[in-house]
């Protein structure tokens, strides 16, 4: 483990649990009247976005600001990048400006890896989604949400929709997670398969065969083409956004057929165990992969995932920039006492 967060595959079980536990601490800050910690005062976090993603960008921005970091938003659109500046020169520019962390979203798989290993910059690199490769903070916030619902009760079990619990110290051993949709193009799915497996969960991917990558056989998960068969054996079902354009490339015939075979509607949701939750990384295509009935039900955690995203990104920035070499020696979470002092 190092000072970058590029791939969920790089995290050990203890790394992952530390991220989740730290995020629990951060979540408590969000419940206070003053939602701010002084931890990263004087540090600079750059959000370097080569792809439009307002949700992810503002989530990182809120996280950095709650830690009192200075935040610079660098959008490739309308900048020198759109005039042909290379990633290298952009990186050198940010380095010259003293960026302590670069949060990068890029349309090319591997761009964050390249940024972290090229020697162009000295700060931490956080992958905020690269091409069809990975989106590790999304996987962490998904795991965080699952842990709260599926291991958040006092006995370590599910909370049965009585609101999220606190699963601090726990992993997801034995939980059965189903991810449904466009696996082929999904960085969320890739990161989740790595992270959930590391946390002890059993992952099943469900998609039409056209949207499953060749080579998936090497992944530590099951693959099914039959959503109805998998639902009764799922503790959480994650519905991925399916872009309507995919049907133009013959990945599936029509939106209606996709919705019929792989969409989650009320009748299907009823096949899930009572305690099971429905997740969606957003933005949702209501009527495509998920119906309004399911999206608005008490089982659906989509909105909660957004809130958890800020807590997770606070934890990531805190652990990467706090100088804590997690993995070897776990960083202490910010103590309640210290926070109180600095907040008064």
């Amino acid at each position, binding site marked *: 483990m190092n000072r970058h967060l590029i791939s969920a595959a790089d995290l050990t079980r203890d790394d992952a649990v530390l991220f989740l536990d730290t995020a629990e601490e951060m979540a408590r800050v969000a419940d206070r009247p003053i939602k701010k910690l002084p931890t990263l005062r004087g540090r600079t976090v750059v959000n370097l976005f080569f792809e439009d993603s307002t949700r992810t960008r503002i989530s990182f921005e809120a996280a950095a600001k709650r830690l009192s970091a200075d935040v610079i938003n660098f959008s490739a659109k309308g900048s020198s990048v759109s005039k042909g500046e*290379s*990633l*290298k020169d952009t990186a050198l520019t940010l380095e010259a400006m003293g960026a302590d962390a670069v949060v990068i979203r*890029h*349309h*090319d*798989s*591997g*761009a964050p*890896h*390249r940024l972290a*290993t*090229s020697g162009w910059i000295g700060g931490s690199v956080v992958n905020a989604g*690269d*091409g*069809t*490769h*990975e989106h590790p903070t999304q996987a962490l916030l998904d795991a965080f949400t699952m842990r709260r619902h599926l291991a958040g009760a006092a006995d370590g079990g599910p909370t049965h929709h009585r609101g999220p619990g606190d699963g601090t110290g726990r992993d997801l051993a034995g939980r059965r997670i189903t991810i449904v949709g466009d696996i082929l193009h999904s*960085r969320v799915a*890739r990161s989740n398969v790595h992270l959930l497996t590391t946390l002890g969960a059993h992952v099943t991917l469900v998609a039409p065969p056209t949207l499953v*990558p*060749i*080579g*998936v*056989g*090497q*992944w530590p998960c099951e693959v099914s083409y039959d959503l109805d068969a998998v639902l009764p054996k799922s503790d959480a079902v994650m519905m991925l956004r399916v872009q309507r354009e995919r049907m133009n490339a013959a990945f599936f015939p029509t939106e209606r057929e996709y919705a019929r075979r792989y969409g989650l509607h009320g009748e299907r949701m009823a096949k899930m165990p009572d305690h099971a939750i429905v997740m969606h990384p957003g933005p949702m295509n209501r009527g495509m992969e998920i119906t309004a009935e399911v999206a608005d039900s008490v089982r659906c955690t989509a909105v909660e995932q957004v809130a958890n995203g800020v807590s997770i990104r606070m934890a990531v920035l805190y652990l990467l920039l706090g100088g804590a070499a997690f993995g070897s020696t776990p960083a202490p979470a910010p103590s309640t006492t210290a926070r109180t002092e600095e907040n008064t």
Partner: protein
Amino acid sequence: MTMSKILIRGARPLGGEPRDVLIDAGTIAAVGPALEAADAQIVEADGQILLPGLVDLHTHLREPGREDSETVLTGTKAAAVGGFTAVHAMANTFPVADTAGVVEQVWRLGKESGYCDVQPVGAVTVGLAGKQLAELGAMHDSAAGVRVFSDDGKCVDDAVIMRRALEYVKAFDGVVAQHAQEPRLTEGAQMNEGAVSAELGLGGWPAVAEESIIARDVLLAAHVGSRVHICHLSTAGSVEIVRWAKSKGWHVTAEVTPHHLLLTDELVRSYNPVYKVNPPLRTEADVLALREALADGTIDCVATDHAPHPHEDKDCEWGAAAMGMVGLETALSVVQHTMVDTGLLDWPGVADRMSARPAAIGRLRGHGRPIAVGEPANLTLLDSAYRGAVDPAGFASRSRNTPYEGRELPGRVTHTFLRGRATVMDGKLT
């Protein structure tokens, strides 16, 4: 060098018993155990391997148009350093080598360079666009005497255009060299499609996109009675198809690049674009099948697909990077490492796959000849005992995009002779 007589002492022709070889007036004047020539310059070979000058069927010299990455002069210098005495200059230049004028320009630049013979390849279709046949006959009839035609970089994917090209070039004993890549199956392709691409989230270039075109083209060649050459064959499946076509007696030849004999897609995990190449690096099973096919003759020859790119086209993210690797200066070392040191091929085999057969496919006169009295003195001396790390800073090529930087490889070309004139002497360009 003005000296016309050179006496090479103690070289081992094709790895055999030590012999002295006397070169006079551009030809091999004598071969024997202990030759004397008072007026000759002496080259002490000291047991080094003597090979016929290497011939490359597939070289990108980039001139005209991309002189920032390579010129005919720098490219032929790199060729000489690598032991080559003839290269086929691919047609995907700017402008495209699809007219007699452009191929003659490249041919003339080769003559002026003097480091290596340059045989231009002509485009099959106008602008490599795959729609209309280029003036193949005019390019053949030009001073450049083109016999190999290729849209390399692009596949002649239209079956009718391919059929017509195969038929048309029969009139002057030409050959179409196909870059086998079904375009629809490779839209957005970034690397070999398989376990690694699935994990890295990079667009897949499936083996079937190569194999389906090769299967079609060997059938077309058989149907019209033409010969067809397959560029940079890269998969185990392609080997099977070519083997089957040859078993039918069809006139199919194929080449493999040095990098496909050594490197696999596992290297892409670094996201370092120096490993980005087309066709992409494949799997270990493919590499082993390619070596075996080169050894048994299913694959006729090694061709470098030397593809120089400026630094900035590789010093970037994977998706933005150019495809290709330089290869002229490391080709023989990689072949020694993968084929000779593994016991798959002996030195006569290397001479066949890197000189005689590519020359025969290109119908190139004066190259790929035996090391015998009266033959043109196109020769390469290899110190096969040498071991050293590849240092791109020392390349003669204008570009540095080698996948072997820092890798220890065996063998070093110490001398290259082009028609009796040393282009490389003691490892240095003359």
